[in-house]
């Protein structure tokens, strides 16, 4: 046992290359290519601003993903709390010096792009919680100490993000954290209790929501309430998807987006555009690709020896699923519009960066799967 753990700390370059999950890379590349074509379609088939930017970002962050994959997973383990703290500091910085756009303060100006720290926090929380639960014995998890600490760790970033305000991202961060707490084995009853408390406090929560958030939730329950205002996005999105039919209207033929009926088509509603042009077949295929991606990540988790790697992979897979589910459920009218991008597909540097960073840690878990990670 001891000798194995000692041996495992050295890997030859060939070993590393052999250990790379090429299948995962191919899936990411395929989804990335689809995303470039989709953004190209939002510009009515002109290779201009959004398409160029998106292509460059995808290529840059894709290479970043490949390179960062070779960082040892143990390094991520060691720096996990630092990563978390950096995330919190950046959120605080945003709160004080961030750039505002349409009523919310979410971005830091990095000159080449506007960076959104809350996106980074999505990954940081998973890394942090993976490390946190790495040590804790299953028998200790139910103790109040180990219940309180992660709750606080989770509430801080959630609060900072809600304050921006960005309810969507906050929900995704909370969801990702909760997924790891669940995986670590916290008793089901705590989830049930907190769920009940949330339900009871819902009227209060709604009362402190911003007017636009409230209207979005009310609109979700009845989009026809205000078809030209808050309900417009969801109605137009459903029309676009529905009119796509089985095979779709064809590439660059999506009238809803081409004639500008579709709002936010580059970002949150990119799935709508894709679905209008490629129909049920295309949408199902894209969902299948995402499912393969998630399956691949879970598989890596299974192959990893350390709890950190396992928790991280399973946690990241769950988070990724959550992003995808929330976005698609939102555009098909199953969930209120909360502002959640579709991983890789949506235009937006920060989201792309955080997904690629998350994937590189997954890959690192694969390459260094034999690392037991101390303690």
């Amino acid at each position: 046992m001891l000798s194995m753990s000692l041996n495992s700390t050295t890997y030859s370059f060939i070993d590393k290359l052999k250990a790379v999950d090429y299948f995962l890379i191919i899936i990411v590349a395929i989804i990335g290519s689809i995303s470039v074509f989709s953004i190209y379609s939002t510009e009515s088939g002109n290779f201009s601003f959004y398409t160029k930017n998106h292509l460059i970002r995808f290529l840059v962050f894709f290479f970043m993903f490949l390179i960062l994959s070779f960082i040892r997973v143990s390094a991520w383990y060691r720096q996990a709390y630092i990563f978390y703290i950096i995330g919190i500091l950046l959120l605080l910085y945003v709160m004080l010096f961030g750039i505002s756009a349409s009523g919310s303060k979410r971005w830091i100006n990095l000159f080449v792009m506007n960076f959104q720290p809350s996106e980074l926090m999505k990954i940081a929380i998973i890394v942090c919680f993976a490390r946190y639960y790495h040590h804790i014995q299953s028998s200790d998890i139910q103790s109040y100490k180990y219940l309180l600490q992660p709750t606080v760790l989770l509430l801080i970033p959630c609060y900072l993000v809600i304050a921006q305000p960005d309810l969507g991202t906050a929900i995704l961060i909370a969801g990702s954290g909760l997924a790891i707490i669940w995986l670590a084995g916290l008793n089901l009853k705590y989830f049930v209790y907190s769920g009940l408390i949330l339900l009871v406090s819902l009227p209060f929560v709604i009362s402190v929501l911003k007017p636009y958030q409230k209207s979005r939730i009310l609109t979700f329950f009845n989009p026809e309430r205000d078809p030209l205002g808050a309900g417009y996005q969801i109605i137009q999105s459903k029309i676009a998807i529905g009119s796509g039919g089985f095979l779709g209207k064809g590439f660059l033929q999506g009238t809803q987006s081409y004639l500008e009926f579709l709002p936010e088509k580059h970002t949150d509603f990119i799935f709508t555009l894709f679905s209008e042009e490629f129909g049920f077949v295309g949408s199902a295929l894209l969902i299948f690709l995402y499912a393969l991606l998630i399956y691949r990540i879970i598989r890596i988790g299974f192959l990893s020896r350390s709890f950190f790697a396992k928790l991280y992979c399973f946690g990241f897979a769950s988070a990724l699923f959550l992003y995808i589910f929330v976005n698609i459920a939102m555009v098909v009218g199953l969930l209120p519009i909360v502002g959640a991008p579709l991983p890789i597909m949506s235009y937006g540097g920060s989201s792309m960066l955080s997904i690629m960073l998350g994937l590189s840690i997954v890959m690192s878990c694969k390459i260094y799967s034999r690392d037991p990670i101390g303690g």
Partner: protein
Amino acid sequence: MIKKTGNLNKNRIISRRLFVLVAAKIGLLGIVTSRLYNLQISEKQKYEVLSDKNRIREWKTPPQRGIITDYFNNVIADNQRVYQVHLSLEEVSNFNNSIFKLKNIISLKEDEIKKIYEKKEKSKPWDTLIISENLSWKEFSKLNLYLHELDGAKPVLSTSRYYPYSNDLVHVVGYVGDATTQDIQNKKKIEENFVPGLKVGKIGIESSKDTDLIGNHGTKRFEVNASGKKISEISYNKETQGENLRTTIDLEIQQLAQELLKNQAGSICVMDIYTGEVITMASSPTYDPNKFTHGISTKDWNEIKNNKLRPLLNKSLAGLYSPGSTIKPLVALAALEYGIIDTKFKVNCKGHDHPYELYGERYHCWKKNGHGWMSMRNAIKQSCDIYFYEVARLLGVDKLSLIAKRYGLGSKVLEDFFSEEKKGIVPSTKWKKQVLEQSWYLGETVITGIGQGYIQTTPLQLCLMTAQLANGGYKIKPNLIYDKEIDIDIIKSKIESEKNKSVDQNILKDHGFKYYERLYRNPNNLKFVLDAMYGSTNEQFGTSFKSRHTEDKYKFAGKTGTSQVKRITDQDRELDLNLEEIEYKNRDHALFIAFAPYNKPRYSLSVLIEHGGSGSKAAAPLANKLIKKILDRHELREKIRKDLKNIA
């Protein structure tokens, strides 16, 4: 070892929990996929329709109205090219500014501008506003010169209604104007084809035949983007022109009639006594229907409305007059048909000193010195009132009423073709009970016998009555629009077979008649009455003797009528004033009915001059000129009739 088992345990927990998560994920993916299935496959059609509704916007193009012609194919209601300026609201950056500029270029008046702003309020942002419907060529060319400064303004070549014989036919053809909310609600065809600026018929044929004339609007479909901007034309379903209509009117006779009525208030109607074709239906004074097409100005409207001779009243069918002596042939006919008297029955007319008396009431003849002993033929010819007082008394009002109604009085001649047409009144004891809730007095019967009292008729009814007497006593179907179903040869053969039919026992009772059915019991009675009318025009002492034609082919038979508008008092009788000395509104209406040519009757006519004085002086002379024209044009009309039949 403890740690190892702990780790194993932890591994198991993580795997178990992961399994739950994966199961949840699969479940949620299932939900999302089924939702997609629901949207894209089950409800595809619904969303496809919604998507098309989003992106496709329709613009209606106005239909073209059908052309109206007279019997000889002269166009009497045409579509004329007009110059207009439209303003496309989505292209206008500053509406007030554009209107201000346009105002200077095409000289818009203040009230026009007010109307434009009212219209704009009701328009949708992508609508097109018609700023001016009828620009002069000068204004139109000036507009084109300044067009670069006027965003959204479009010079448009359009068509609008034009009546080439402006005043002559307004009471027949009518006019058009903007469709009102009421028009749209009342007529489905208008509702279906409504386009802003659509003109619809307001009165006359334009109104009653609107459904045929209006045509179908076209549809231009454009693809538009979310802000309503046109991206491309998808399809253009061209508008169609409405049906062209041929009327039965003879333009030349109509024009002559209007000319004869000039400066007087009155009516002239001419009808074919077999086909029932209305050849002329003139009413005077008239007005210009072209003024209504683009909205009449207040000044013009007031001028028409305040004219004392009431140009807006279509006197031929909405003017009600006592028929006066023109009813006498009918009274004589009724008395003969019922066998109350025979043609040899005589009455002595002894002049104003010895009037007809009934229960203390005195009834005078128009002739001061009296006619002396009158037989029936003379009484009609010389229009003796005393004779008809007595005949009416013997006949009774109910029998007279029955025969009067049978020959066309008391009901609408053109049914519901003209909304303004009046039924008139043919009084009877029952009618008085029902309407006035009073009993009938014999004295009322007596004056009904000379066409005074309650009885009210329209000139067109008198024309129809004359026609149905002149054709030998057969019911005809009056019509104003050429109808190929109405065939002169078929009608004549129907009449021929009716003539030889044995007499129905019920012929003198009140019952309905079919078209071309015989209305009389004994043909000799009709022959007698027509012969008496011949005498009235062509023999000395006849009331219309001065208006006769001596040439055989123009010879006609007629009956004058003078309809009192006011009861004549003994004082009036004493004064015996000339026409010029009586106040206009108190002067008698002059009437004349006639048919021609006498030996082979084909046409009937009625002339009415409001407050014209006596029928023989004011009305009968017009018939002389008219009948010549009508008979001169007979051959031509028959030729057209043949041509039309051959086409069909």
